[in-house]
């Protein structure tokens, strides 16, 4: 019998046609769009004089370029406003469901899709955003695409795509107290490097992955792209199906009822072969931080910056990176004073992340001189935080909750970190200028971010539990 990986099973089930000596024509079950990478695609359809082929398979959310304060007011920046208005107009004209600013289902595209039950096991899912890999947590093939490909999906519900190779990352054992799924994925990326999984689609497996909640799994899959992987998925199990079953109204979702029938089939067969296998021991993972300008430049929170970037070829980039950050090889960052803390984004903007952050800061006070941005990933997350009393606890500790959006993760809106300032951020990228021109980003998990928010320094969260 042909033993297949889950990835290959899903891929094969979606191939409309294999182009000779070329890519596959892949049918897309679910397409998410947002304001930044879709306008040129709609413009393309107009210039061709065609309409959206299957509008019911696309969902639109405004998230990248919206303010996180005073969302009831019109967007102040006229160019940003025009971009969001364009998404609304394009969606309306095409008959695409649209979650605009203030809509109860609005939020970051990779947070709201799963909340609504639109992201399902066995699906092919794309979005003009590299963190579409997030949805792989449900056992879906989900990956980011460019605007030309958004146009392809709008026009034909298909995409031309070459099948990537397969990699399995097995994480045995248990994560230690004070260590989150964000720390695990930063640890994996630091080991494989920022381009180490390029050309691969990853399946995450093993005890540590199985023990994770859906929120934690989404954090892991979200950052697959940060090691270059096309995407990353986790085979659906009881955790997945229970999460889905609890979504209000899911029983009316026809895709869900059909896919639930395939439950026993949605797994990698025993003996299926991966092009590459990597194994990690979860118990060895410490709380992680990054020290450089790509997510692969990570180390233990109490670690020492390496003395070189490895091969001579990469050393120039390594030193340029440290220079940008204001660091030197061989130094520790523990105790470094920080200026900003950002908790949010499609990586760590879910309810469990806010719970973790709140748990650590409860009964303490925000450190003087640190600006803290707490941005829930969606309105649903914000409502849940309110309901659970997290918002109140945060307020007492001197923190203020903002309104949902991508915010400081990419700083397209006004939530920019000033040049030269250090930001401990639960987002996914520490690229130069990512959080604003000249901003210095230190990626971390929600507990390390919380520890920094109350001490004003890089602090080991394990000492505060």
């Amino acid at each position, binding site marked *: 019998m042909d033993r297949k990986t889950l990835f290959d099973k899903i891929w094969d089930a*979606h191939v*409309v*046609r294999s*182009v*000779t*000596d*070329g890519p596959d*024509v892949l*049918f897309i079950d679910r397409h998410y769009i947002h304001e*930044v*990478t879709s*306008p*040129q695609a709609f*413009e*393309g359809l107009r*210039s*061709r004089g065609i309409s959206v*082929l299957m509008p019911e398979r696309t969902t639109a959310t405004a998230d990248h370029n919206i303010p996180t304060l005073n969302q009831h007011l019109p967007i102040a920046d006229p*160019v*940003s406003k025009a*971009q969001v208005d364009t998404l609304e107009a394009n969606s309306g004209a095409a008959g695409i469901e649209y979650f605009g600013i203030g809509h109860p289902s609005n939020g970051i595209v990779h947070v709201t899709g799963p909340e609504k039950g639109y992201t399902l096991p066995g699906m092919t899912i794309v979005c003009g*955003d*590299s963190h579409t890999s997030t949805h792989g947590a449900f056992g879906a093939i989900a*990956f*980011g*695409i*460019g*605007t*030309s*490909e958004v146009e*392809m999906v709008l*026009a*034909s519900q*298909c995409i*031309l*795509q*070459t099948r*990537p190779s397969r990699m399995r990352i097995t994480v045995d054992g248990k994560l230690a107290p004070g260590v989150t799924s964000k720390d695990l994925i930063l640890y994996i990326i630091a080991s494989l490097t*920022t*381009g180490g999984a*390029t*050309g691969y689609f990853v399946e995450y497996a093993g005890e540590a992955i199985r023990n994770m909640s859906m929120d934690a799994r989404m954090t892991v899959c979200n950052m697959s792209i940060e090691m*270059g992987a096309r995407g990353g998925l986790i085979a659906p199990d009881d955790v997945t199906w229970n999460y889905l079953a609890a979504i209000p109204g899911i029983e009316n979702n026809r895709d869900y009822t059909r*896919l639930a*029938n*395939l439950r026993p089939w949605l797994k990698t067969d025993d003996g299926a072969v991966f092009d590459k296998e990597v194994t990690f021991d979860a118990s060895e993972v410490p709380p992680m931080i990054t020290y450089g300008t*790509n997510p*692969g430049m990570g180390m233990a929170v109490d670690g020492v910056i390496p003395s070189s970037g490895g091969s001579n070829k*990469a050393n*120039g*980039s390594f030193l340029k990176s440290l220079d940008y950050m204001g660091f030197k090889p061989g130094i520790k960052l523990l105790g470094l004073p920080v200026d900003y803390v950002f908790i949010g984004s499609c990586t760590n903007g879910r309810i469990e992340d806010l719970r973790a952050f709140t748990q650590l800061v409860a009964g303490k006070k925000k450190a003087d001189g640190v600006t803290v941005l707490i941005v829930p990933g969606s309105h649903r997350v914000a409502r849940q935080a309110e309901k659970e009393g997290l918002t109140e606890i945060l307020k007492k500790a001197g923190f203020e909750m903002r309104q949902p959006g991508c915010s400081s993760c*990419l*700083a*397209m809106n006004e939530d920019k970190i000033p040049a030269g300032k250090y930001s401990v951020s639960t987002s996914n*990228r520490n*690229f*130069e*200028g*990512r959080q604003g*021109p000249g901003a210095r980003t230190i990626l971390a998990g929600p507990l390390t971010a919380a520890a920094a928010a109350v001490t004003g320094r890089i602090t080991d969260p394990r000492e505060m539990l």
Partner: protein
Amino acid sequence: MKREKFTVVESTCVPLPLANIDTDQIIPARFLTATTREGFGENLFRDWRYGKNGKPVQDFVLNMPAFSGKILITGSNFGCGSSREHAVWAIAGHGFRAVVSDSFADIFMNNALNNGLLPVIIPSATLARLTTQVLSNPGTEVRIDLERQILSVPGSAVSAKFPVNAFRKECLLKGLDNVDYLLAMKGEIVKFEPLWAQ
């Protein structure tokens, strides 16, 4: 829709030999607010190219009069990070027709191919030699022949075969558009139901 054909490009080069150049460097997020494909070229590598005062950074390669041309030579894992196609629009908008490296990020590569910007993958050793040669002699002309899939420096030993998917190559050579290809099989697509929906 017809696109510009790619057959042979022969040009001097702009060397930017850094590894892991992400799309946030190619075009920073604050310039992504436009709703058209035009005008991104002027902000290509914006924060490396211009200082805080808006003045050109003299030692950045795009500001060096010695270096110009239609070919960008760069380092490993070029175009990693954000999927923004604006990065390709910025590179093409500046006038580049090809980017040469020993590896590219997956999404960037697809975006480039969809816009007629050729990602040329050559062995690391050849890339190192080519970079050195261009840095020491900015007048070096590089020839990229898509039909033969060969990058060479005429009159020198530098020559390398580069991989291109046959379908993509055909599209580039003839200036064909992928959306047209998909639209032509619409009948097949609307009848298609993925396995689980049957």
